């Protein structure tokens, strides 16, 4: 399981964590991803988490539930979570199979996700201005 390309990457960007899932994860890998992510929130004192699932063209019910629990756990540890890049087919599958993602926020892509976190959080500590004008 440790060999081969990385399945997920968790990058720190200021006070945000950006976690990208590169390929479909099985249940064990998903649980491990959750644990890594939640652990890193504490380590980096992150205020916001972006989970990028743009590479996934399938998401099973366990995956959807795990995303929801990540959102809730992250909230308890003081971070706002947003899931970005859900593919159209995946989005429709999630709702038509009744796999609720609960109260977790979603956005179109990484850029939108960052914008959402910027608007939700009072001030991005050590913010690196990238020239984008907030609406």
């Amino acid at each position, binding site marked *: 399981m440790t060999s081969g390309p990385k399945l997920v990457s968790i990058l720190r960007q200021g006070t945000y964590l950006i976690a990208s899932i590169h390929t479909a994860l099985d249940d064990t890998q998903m649980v491990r991803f959750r644990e890594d992510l939640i652990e890193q929130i504490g380590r980096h004192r992150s205020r916001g988490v972006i989970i990028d699932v743009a590479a996934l063209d399938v998401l099973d019910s366990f995956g959807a539930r795990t995303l929801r629990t990540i959102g809730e756990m992250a909230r308890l540890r003081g971070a706002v979570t947003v899931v970005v890049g859900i593919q159209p087919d995946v989005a*429709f599958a999630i709702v038509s199979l009744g796999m609720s993602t609960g109260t977790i926020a979603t956005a179109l892509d990484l850029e939108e996700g960052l914008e959402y976190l910027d608007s939700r959080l009072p001030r991005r500590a050590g913010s690196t201005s990238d020239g984008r004008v907030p609406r």
Partner: protein
Amino acid sequence: MTTDETATVTAEVTADFPAIDHPDADQLLPQLVAHLREHRSRLRQEWASRIQEAGLLHAMTPQEMAAETTSVYDNYVEVLETGSVEALQRYARDLSERIIPRGVETHEVVGIVLLLRDVLARSLFEKYQRDFGLLNRMLDAYEPAANRIANTVAVSFVDERERVIRQQQDSIRELSTPVLPVRERLLILPIIGVLDSERARQLTEQLLGGIRTHRAKVVVIDITGVPDVDEAVANHLVQTVDASRLMGASVIITGLSPEIAQTLVTIGVDLSKMDTIGDLQGGLEEAERLLGYAVRENGMGGP
């Protein structure tokens, strides 16, 4: 050795069928074809008059009918001769293409082919009425071929009709769910006409795809033109709204008719998450508000 074997086989066959003075089944069809060629104009005319008697093919002028019956007759005989229906299939499809727009019905097409079959069978009766055994075997050879021809023509005709219908359905479908970008990050989907489950599915596909390509943040679905929806479609609509939210877009539904509102309430879907506004104008104003545009009354009193 080969000659030996052939000899034995022939011997066996002759043993099984002692009446060898009759022509072999292989020779029956060529004989039949020759007969039909010989009496071509008489049989064709008889057929044409039978068609007129039956009152079929009103849509065609006598000249056209003469031309078409001649080609159908020739194709028919050719199929009997070669046993291959491909040419006939092509011809039937081509003919259908020409006559369907003029309102020729399926029963007429099948009717005229069956009439031809009948006319030819009668001419066989007439010719072989003295030799009953031969007539029998002639019909044995003729009937399956004739049935196959009738089948081919009917199937080609129906196929052509279905192709036309499919083509029209496709073009209606393409027209039916436009996704229109009106402002940066704002899409409008006006839906007009009955929303069945197939169209609802397509709507979802177009909407979710549209959100992605236009990077939409707000989508206004206007269903003023939809008379009614059933439960399945209403549920589908709600799911579409949820799916859009997962893709980061808010959906505003405008123009719900009283009937649709009642359906939605009756089936008990969770409406708290649905953002609905009375008309398209209000929907657009709300969408612009969500996008951060300021909507201002023109206070000068003029329009």
